[in-house]
């Protein structure tokens, strides 16, 4: 009987700790436990056997750290480890799990390991183990959703074995990278693991608190493998570890809560497992209940489609947005990132991301934009594309369980999108159209919805993972369109399916579209709408959202409404303008005032005059004050950002007249260096002085910088390095670029550099601060 069939019958027991047992047998601190598979196979087998004898069903191979990022001989270690474990089997219902632990590195963008390299490391372990007769794969002690996703994909794409996955919680019930239980469950179930749960870090007493939540959200069997415990201090209170007796009685309670797969982690011994299996002997486990949550997730939290309508921000979509189109063409990812943060601050629950433009590589751009947004926003994303290849790549690198926009009733769409939803785990928006277009009756649309739901079922996608969008045509061209849509929502709710709507289309061609959108939104809400794609900056829409929740009794004590209303009151009162000049606003760093004054000035003065006679003189004053030690870095930055605001107003009014670019400059933080505040400060100041900065980001390889310089023909490059350990890659970059293009000049900066050091590594200029880089740029460009 395989492990999955056995699991259906009753409790399954994992073994306990390997490390503690190895230390008892003489493993020294700092020695690699994995090498003992080769040097001491008989000890490894004996440990596995002692756990089987204690009643464990699963021997976890001694391969926790066997990935190629930690050791050189992965294949040999894994092969021997599996042999050692299999040799210990002496009875039926004894299985071997290939153990996969974390890489020990943190993934980008927070750390320096790429998602793809993490995947490759895990795939190497899986390939080494899959063909050698283990019964399942256990991915364990995971701290980070992104690394976990890489590991599960590697396991599923390189083997057909059952995959179990467990992660580590801290005393607040989150992973150290900030993910909560709901989001973890959503991600893992989406990826199709066979069992999921928690291990390590805490003892059974502490983990117990979090088990009900795991059971509440998981539709697959739940695993709990606690530590024996260790001393720890929370807010000054010291707690201690548990004996085998204490451990087994706590895990017994965990079993009664509904966990089905139980065992131990660090510090647990065969005695812990023996008492545990004895305690549960003859006990019938709770049934595993399938849950019906429609849920998506980000790296940290889940978003459920129930109760309150989910607001999906529509702003990152080039249709009808010339500025966004320009940003996409210029590869200006900052624009998309700011748009994401802006919508989040306005109260969006999710963000739609659509970058489809004929003249750009959509697949590449979608991946890049999603990577950037998920680095700074914890909102789950709706990946929006009609290109299946772009969807595939984007769903793969998305750090969570995505919402996919969209599939429709056409064969081509069903066949290309549904397999992706199954593979990566997602919720998909189903548009009610097919080869014959959009039906003009509600019944016709429901029929297409049902067809999509049935087809999805054939792929193994649950109805709960489908959200139907019955589409909304423009009222100005068809007066009956909105009522058909509303009727469709009503019928769809009767067949118990979630419904979403892109609201803005209804008002196309009409003036003051917000008025129409918000009333239509309100009607749709009463029909039972679950999600809406909308503009979070629209006050009319937000009014409806908050007022509706308050009126329907889903906003406890009307708290959200009150906070929304008071925020909006505050902003309308504070518009009185103080009598100050633009210069003073910039010098004092008053952004709001600077924007208002510039708007007023633009009515009476030429834009370029504002720049030359107001903004630049103010910046010069601030720059001089800074260099003379009268003002300091924070004030310099505040002024620079205020000037940026004024520049933006001016730019909006220039309309193609005059070229204000004083020169193009590449800026990058060198390879190995993942901090870029210094570079960003220099960027803001250079932009203020009229330079066009091409920001290549952080951790940039010499080759990337060379290629970009060659592609653009830019002759000035600014590099930043923060640590002595990364100055060599700065040197390498300069050497590489100068060996091919001796006319390209480098200015360098960073905490560990000085003029001599800069000269030694071949830089043309050492910029002790941002103002010095402006000086040098002026010298290079002669302006």
């Amino acid at each position, binding site marked *: 009987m395989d492990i999955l069939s056995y699991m259906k019958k009753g409790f399954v027991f994992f073994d306990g700790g390997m490390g503690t047992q190895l230390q008892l047998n003489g493993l020294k601190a700092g020695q690699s436990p994995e090498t003992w598979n080769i040097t001491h196979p008989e000890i490894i087998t004996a440990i596995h056997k002692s756990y089987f004898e204690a009643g464990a069903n699963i021997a976890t191979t001694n391969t926790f750290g066997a990935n190629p990022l930690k050791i050189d001989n992965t294949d040999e270690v894994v092969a021997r480890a599996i042999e050692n474990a299999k040799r210990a089997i002496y009875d039926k219902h004894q299985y071997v799990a290939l153990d996969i632990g974390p890489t020990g590195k943190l993934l980008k963008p927070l750390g320096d390991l790429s998602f793809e390299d993490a995947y490759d490391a895990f795939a190497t372990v899986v390939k080494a183990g899959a063909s050698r007769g283990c019964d399942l794969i256990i991915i364990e002690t995971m701290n980070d959703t992104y690394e976990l996703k890489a590991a599960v994909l590697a396991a599923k794409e390189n083997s057909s074995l059952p995959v179990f996955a467990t992660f580590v919680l801290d*005393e607040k019930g989150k992973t150290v990278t900030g993910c909560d239980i709901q989001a973890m469950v959503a991600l893992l179930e989406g990826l199709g693991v066979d069992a999921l749960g928690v291990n390590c870090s805490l003892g059974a007493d502490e983990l117990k608190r979090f088990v009900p939540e795991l059971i509440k959200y998981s539709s697959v069997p739940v695993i709990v493998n606690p530590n024996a415990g260790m001393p720890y201090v*929370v807010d000054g209170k010291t707690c201690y570890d548990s004996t085998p007796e204490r451990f087994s009685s706590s895990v017994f309670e965990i079993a009664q809560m509904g966990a089905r797969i139980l065992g131990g982690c660090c510090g647990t011994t065969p005695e812990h497992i023996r008492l545990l299996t004895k305690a549960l002997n003859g006990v019938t486990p709770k049934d595993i209940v399938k849950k019906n949550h429609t849920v998506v997730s980000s790296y940290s939290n889940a978003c459920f489609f129930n109760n309150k309508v989910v607001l999906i921000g529509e702003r990152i979509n080039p249709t009808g947005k010339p500025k966004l189109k320009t940003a996409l063409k210029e590869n200006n990812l900052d624009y998309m990132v700011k748009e994401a943060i802006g919508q989040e601050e306005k109260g969006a629950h999710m963000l739609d991301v659509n970058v489809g433009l004929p003249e750009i590589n959509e697949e590449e751009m979608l991946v890049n934009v999603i990577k950037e947004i998920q680095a700074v926003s914890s909102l789950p994303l709706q990946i929006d594309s009609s290109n299946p290849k772009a969807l595939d790549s984007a769903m793969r690198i998305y750090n969570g369980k995505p919402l996919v926009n969209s599939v429709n009733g056409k064969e081509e769409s069903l066949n290309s999108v549904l397999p992706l939803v199954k593979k990566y785990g997602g919720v998909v928006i189903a548009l009610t159209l097919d080869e014959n277009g959009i039906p003009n009756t509600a019944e016709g649309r429901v029929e297409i919805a049902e067809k999509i739901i049935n087809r999805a079922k054939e792929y193994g996608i649950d109805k709960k993972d489908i959200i139907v969008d019955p589409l909304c045509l423009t009222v100005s061209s068809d007066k009956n369109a909105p009522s058909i849509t509303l009727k469709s929502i009503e019928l769809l709710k009767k067949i118990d399916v979630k419904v979403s709507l892109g609201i803005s289309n209804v008002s196309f061609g009409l003036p003051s579209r917000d008025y129409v959108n918000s009333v239509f939104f309100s009607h749709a809400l009463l029909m039972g709408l679950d999600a809406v794609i909308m503009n979070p900056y629209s006050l009319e829409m937000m009014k409806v959202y908050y007022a509706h929740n308050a009126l329907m009794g889903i906003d406890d004590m009307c708290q959200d409404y009150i906070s929304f209303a008071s925020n909006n009151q505050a902003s309308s009162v504070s518009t009185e303008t103080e009598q100050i000049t633009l210069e003073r606003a910039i010098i004092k760093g008053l952004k709001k005032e600077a924007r208002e004054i510039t708007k007023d000035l633009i009515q009476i003065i030429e834009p370029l005059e504002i720049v030359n006679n107001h903004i630049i003189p103010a910046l010069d004053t601030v720059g001089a004050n800074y260099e003379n030690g009268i003002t300091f870095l924070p004030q310099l930055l505040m002024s620079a*950002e205020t000037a940026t605001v004024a520049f933006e107003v001016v730019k909006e009014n220039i309309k193609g007249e005059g070229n204000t670019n004083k020169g193009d400059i590449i800026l990058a933080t060198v390879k190995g260096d993942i901090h870029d505040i210094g570079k960003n400060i220099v960027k803001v100041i250079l932009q203020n002085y009229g330079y066009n900065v091409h920001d290549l980001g952080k951790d940039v390889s010499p080759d990337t910088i060379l290629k970009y310089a060659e592609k653009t023909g830019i002759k000035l490059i600014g590099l930043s390095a923060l640590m002595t350990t990364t100055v060599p890659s700065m040197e390498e970059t300069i050497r590489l670029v100068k060996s091919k293009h001796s006319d390209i000049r480098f200015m360098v900066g960073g905490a560990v550099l000085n003029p001599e050091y800069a000269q030694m590594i071949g830089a043309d200029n050492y910029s002790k601060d941002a103002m010095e880089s402006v000086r040098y740029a002026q010298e290079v460009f002669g302006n």
Partner: protein
Amino acid sequence: MIDICTISLTETATLKIDKKEVMRYLRTKEMDEGLNAIYEACVKRIYEVASPKAVYKKFNINVLDNIVDFGFMKVNSKDLAKNLKDCNEAYAFAATLGIGADRTFDRLNRVSQTEATVFSAVASSLIESFCDYVNERLIDGLSSKPRFSAGYGDFSLEHQRDILSNLEADKRLGIFLTESYMMVPVKSVTAIIGIRS
């Protein structure tokens, strides 16, 4: 070897942020109203997002000439040997504010360099304050040496890897080391505290 122990603080507000120290990090001598508002907002934010945690272990050590032997690592450093003179025991600890502070910083770094810079300074002050808390807790009446970190003087930064891995700081605290020996989360510290015999 004495058992490993972790410390978590859920009530971060008990840790003080020293405004004078923040101003020193920012190299500014004054805080006008505008900057002060940003400072106050950053203080509020860091208390919300920080999740201070530490892990420590006590080791028997052996100091001979310039070599300090911790059992799990041998450090060749004149400065550390001098710091640990007269010590038979030392604590090694790692402390962090957690990844939430990095995420917040990264976000501010995309929106406003002023706020990012001030936030970073405020976070630095908080991790110092947390290290003082941990330090005090560890020495608890013992006579101890000032804490000493890899990277100080000739105590090679490469030992950061030994210390973090011995304390299992990745698993226990979520501290990771990059190829270039930077700790993530950024606001993380490791240190050795010698106990006078």
